[in-house]
Every structure is written in structure tokens, then in C-alpha cells.
């Protein structure tokens, strides 16, 4: 029942999102990536369905959530039924067969799935706020603002967006209870989506087959290494890592309506998942619209509207229940800059990263690599945002500043690590393959 519940919700979201296929699909893309984008659309739709049901006073349960999601899917189908659906590319990406990199990725995915389902990598914050919120929402049949507003729950981040706890609650309705292994399996689902996005990035950037397989293997090994070692089971940080990687191909494609809406849905997913997803959504939208040039005005509705639909209710409820106090009160100070910098370097050197975390600090160098430039720009802006948060939080002492950095930077780095890794692999492949012809790169067995 555990595996069935999670997969049932994931499939329902992907199926609902696929009703938008006329507006979301792009020609020649990896079929796994296409279904990941359908899943993203469905996930955002599920969150909007939960918000709508709560606003209307309708209790959540499997039937009402499925019904609301079906209504949204029907509306999406009506909105896109006249649009032709472009054909996806082959699963093997133009190569004769799946490669060794795909095999390594599957092995790492299996390892993460087993560790997650066996509760061997339960994330501490799943106990402290994500999981308890999900279970409270499940028991309350809706957003439990009474729980979120209790004075002793201030450290449970009541101001955070509620997509992930809502997803856990929806899974609990399907599972017939808050089944922890089922909740943990969302980690494996998110990891699968991350790997699928990585495959599409490698295809879109024209990386040679050997380098693509090697990069996919590195992405899988590194992400699983840190995810298992740092116990990120049940954490939405995998979703945050997915968003910039999945957006990368969209930042490279020629301007079209499908890319506009996809970018908008990814921005909405980030904004509805974690508080740091709000600036990430803004940076994605800004970089994307800047690259659209004169066409940007036509793209704004599709890019901005999905995020506005999730941020609007979050903001409204947050202000109504006074959950957002302190979110905007910041003043930049260099008082503890040295302490913060040292703590950041120490934190990226945590054993679970095995030194790979430092790659994130080198992301700005990817601005000199054309295929990686837009994704690197988004990641660099997000890094700057992290630095701003560390320097503007009113720390009472150097020890408090150090603790603040150590308690979250390893995970924040995880959000940008996939983009960093794939970016450097793309740059390395471009450098190595100079003097090669495009015919040779596209048809190697």
C-alpha cells in the first residue's frame, strides 16, 4: 500500500498535467522529461485544488481532492485540445540503447528508494515541521492554521508555503493514514524527476554521448551520496534541486508558448515549496523574460500567472494569520561577514559532501560557457540571495551567525549542485570537443 499510494498520487498528478499536453509538450524532447513536466503541472494543480477546497470550506479527502484535480484537468484539456501535440524524442535520446550512465542512475535511484522506504534517511525537519504539518493537514482535512499559529510552533516555519505538506496529506488520504514510508518515497520520485531533467539538459546542450552518460552517472552518484548521507528523506530540497535543472532547457530553447508555460509552472512549484523558492521563481522568470527580448510581453502571462496563483493565497493567509512577521525586516550588515564566510566554507566541507559541495561556489564561472550561461545566471543570483540572507539576518552573536549558516547551507547548496555539476560537465565537453563536427557528435553510437 505504501508504494501504491505514492505512485498513485504521482500518476494522478502526471495524468492531470498531461491534459495540458497541447500547451506543454515540445518537439524532440526526452519523453521522461515531458512526463516530469506533466507531473510538475499536476503537482501545482493539486496544490491549487487544495487551496480552492480550503477556501470554499470543503474538507479534504481522497474523493474531493481527486474531483477538484479532475476539474482542473478538464479545464486544462479544454484550454489546450486544439493545439497539436509535438512528437517527443526517443527514450534513448537518439542513441541505439540506454547506456551505462542510465544504469548507474537507476542503481542510485534504487538505493535512495530503499533507504527512504526503510526510514533509514528520515530528515530531521520532516519530524520537526514538514511531516507534522502534513499529518496535521491530514487530520484537519485542510490547512491547519490553528496549529501553525500556536505560539510554541514559531520555529516550525509557519510562514513557509504549504505545497509539500499538502502533498503529504493527499498521499495520506490515498494510503488511508499517514504512512511514513509512503511519505518518504516522494524523495525517490523527486530524485527520478531530477535525473530525467538532467538527461534532457544533456540532450538539449548537445553533449557527446560518452560525456552525457558520465555526467548522468555523476549527477546520480553525487545527489544520492549527499541525500543518503545527510538524511534528506522526506525533504522538499529534492524538489528545489529539480527546478533550476528542469528550467535549463527552457532557457535555451527558441521562444514558444510551451516554454513560457513550463517555466511558469516550474517557478510556481519553487514558490509553493519553500520560502527560498520565491526568489528562485523570480530569478527564473527574470532571466527567461530577458532572453525573450521583444517577445517578452507576450510571454509574461504564462510565466507569471502560475506563480501568482500560488503566491497570492499564501500571502493572503500569511497576512491574515500574522505568519509573515520578520520575513521582510532585514538590514545588510558586514559585522559577521568573516564568521559567515568561514562557516560557509566549513559547512561545504561537511563529510557527506566529500568536497563536492564546493562546486556550487564556482557556478559564476559557468557564465563564460554559452550553453550553461542562463542556468548559471539563475544559480548565481540564488547564491547572491543566500549571501544576502546570511548577511542581513540580525544575529545576536558570532556563534548564532555560525550556527545559522551551518544549519542550512549544506541543503541550500544541494539546490544548486545539480546545475553546477551538469554545467561544468557541459563546459568540459565543449572544451574537449573543439574541432569536432556536429555530425560526429550527434550520431556516435
Amino acid at each position, binding site marked *: 500500500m505504501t508504494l501504491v499510494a505514492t505512485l498513485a498520487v504521482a500518476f494522478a498528478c502526471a495524468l492531470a498535467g498531461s491534459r495540458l499536453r497541447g500547451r506543454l509538450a515540445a518537439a*524532440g524532447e526526452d519523453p521522461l522529461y515531458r512526463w516530469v513536466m506533466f507531473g510538475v503541472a499536476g503537482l501545482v494543480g493539486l496544490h491549487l485544488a487544495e487551496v480552492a477546497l480550503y477556501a470554499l470550506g470543503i474538507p479534504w479527502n481522497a474523493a474531493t481532492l481527486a474531483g477538484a484535480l479532475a476539474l482542473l484537468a478538464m479545464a486544462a484539456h479544454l484550454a489546450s485540445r486544439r493545439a497539436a501535440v509535438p512528437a517527443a524524442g526517443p527514450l534513448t535520446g537518439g542513441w541505439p540503447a540506454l547506456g551505462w550512465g542510465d544504469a548507474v542512475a537507476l542503481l*542510485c535511484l534504487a*538505493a535512495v528508494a530503499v*533507504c527512504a522506504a*526503510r*526510514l*533509514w*534517511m*528520515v530528515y*530531521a525537519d520532516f*519530524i*520537526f515541521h514538514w*511531516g*507534522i504539518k502534513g*499529518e496535521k493537514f491530514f*487530520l484537519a482535512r485542510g490547512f491547519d492554521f490553528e*496549529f501553525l499559529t*500556536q*505560539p*510554541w510552533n514559531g520555529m516550525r516555519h509557519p510562514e513557509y508555503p504549504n505545497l509539500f505538506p499538502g502533498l503529504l496529506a493527499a498521499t495520506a488520504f490515498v494510503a488511508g493514514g*499517514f504512512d511514513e514510508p509512503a511519505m518518504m518515497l516522494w524523495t525517490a520520485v523527486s530524485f527520478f524527476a531530477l535525473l530525467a531533467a538532467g538527461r534532457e539538459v544533456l540532450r*538539449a*546542450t*548537445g553533449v557527446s554521448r*560518452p*560525456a552525457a552518460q*558520465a*555526467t548522468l*552517472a*555523476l549527477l546520480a*552518484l*553525487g545527489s*544520492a*551520496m*549527499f541525500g*543518503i*548521507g545527510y*538524511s534528506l528523506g522526506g525533504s522538499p530540497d529534492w524538489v528545489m534541486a529539480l527546478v533550476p535543472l528542469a528550467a535549463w*532547457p527552457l532557457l*535555451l*530553447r*527558441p521562444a514558444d508558448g510551451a516554454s513560457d508555460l513550463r517555466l511558469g509552472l516550474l517557478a510556481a512549484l519553487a514558490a509553493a515549496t519553500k520560502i527560498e523558492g520565491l526568489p528562485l521563481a523570480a530569478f527564473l522568470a527574470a532571466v527567461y523574460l530577458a532572453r525573450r527580448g521583444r517577445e517578452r510581453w507576450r510571454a509574461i502571462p504564462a510565466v507569471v500567472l502560475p506563480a501568482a496563483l500560488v503566491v497570492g493565497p499564501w500571502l493572503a493567509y500569511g497576512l491574515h494569520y500574522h505568519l509573515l512577521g520578520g520575513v521582510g525586516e532585514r538590514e545588510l550588515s558586514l559585522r559577521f561577514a568573516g564568521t559567515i564566510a568561514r562557516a560557509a566554507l566549513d559547512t561545504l566541507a561537511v563529510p*557527506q559532501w*566529500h*568536497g*563536492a559541495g564546493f562546486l556550487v561556489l564556482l557556478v559564476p564561472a559557468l557564465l*563564460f560557457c*554559452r*550553453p550553461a550561461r542562463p542556468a548559471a545566471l539563475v544559480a548565481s543570483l540564488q547564491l547572491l540571495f543566500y549571501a544576502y540572507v546570511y548577511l542581513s539576518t540580525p544575529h545576536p552573536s558570532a556563534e548564532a551567525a555560525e550556527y545559522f549558516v551551518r544549519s542550512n547551507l549544506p541543503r541550500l547548496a544541494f539546490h544548486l549542485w545539480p546545475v553546477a555539476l551538469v554545467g561544468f*560537465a557541459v563546459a*568540459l565537453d*565543449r*572544451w*574537449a*570537443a*573543439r*574541432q*569536432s*563536427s*556536429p555530425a560526429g557528435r550527434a550520431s556516435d553510437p
Partner: protein
Amino acid sequence: MNAVWRKYEKAQRVGRSPEGWPGREMTVSSRGMPRSARLWLAACAFAAAGAWLALGFAREVYRTLDLETLRPPPVLPPVVWRYSTPQAQRLRAFLERVGERVPAGSRVAFASRPTRADGEFYRFLWASYWLPGLVVMPETAAAGREVDYWIAFGRTLDRADLELLLTDEAGSLHRAAGSQEH
């Protein structure tokens, strides 16, 4: 910024793929290191990174298996409890016994033995996770608030206004005087 990119790329001749997609670019250069050497260096870089991350992955998987299955779980302070930590599971078992005696929706104050590094606070977080049907608050928040039940874990509560309902080696459950049933 555009001038910087143009200067950096002035040695390359850039075109477009037959599909007209700017992401697929051809680069041709006749300067610098031979292509074969570049390919070898790149292959070595990928191989070295692969070996490093594979070792790291294997190490983290082994470390997790070691912590969870291969040897008795270590005793840890509450701030770093894992799901399988014996004290966490002991707390869970105690709360399952206690939870059967407390009606859903009751307001419960949770008290535990004070320890270093905010141990009692983290035990409260774990306790509230395992009692999701109750309104659980830490002992420090109970002052001046209506509380229906008190749970003491790893310590005793000697208060005249509390009625002892259950006690065992892990802790005790008390009902506050005058509390209303929910």
C-alpha cells in the same frame, strides 16, 4: 556584458544546427591543445570525478547501513536523534501507551528531563510529531494556559493539581484538575 562574451569567443566561428536551435552550436577552432589531448584530459577528469563520487556514494550507503542495521544504534543527544535512535523509539513507545488514554484534541503539556543543547525542546518536537491528534505544547509554554493533561518523560512531576493516570519506567501521564473532556 555582451562585449565581454564577444571578446571571449572571437576565436570561434559559431553557427547554427540544421534545426535552427541556438542551444546546439558548432565550434571550430584550429588553435591550442590537440583535440586528442583534450579528449584524454576530459576523460580523465570524468573518470576521476566518477571514482571519487562512487567511493563517496558507497561510503555514505555503508555508513547508513552501519548506523541502521549492522550494529546497535548509537545513543545520541536529542538534537541529533535519528528515527531509529533508541531513545526516540523509547519515547515513541511511551507516547503510544499514553496516547491511548488521552482523548483526541486534548491540550497536553510535555515535560522531559533538562539536558544540554536544548534536549527537552527537541524531545518536545519529537513528542508532538508522535501525538499529531493532540495539541502538544512544551512545559515552558504551559504557564497561564489551559492544559488538560501533562506528560512527563524521564522525570517526575510532583504537583498537587495533577491526578496521576499512568506511570511506568519511561514516564507518567497526569490529568490536570478541572480539565474538561473534549
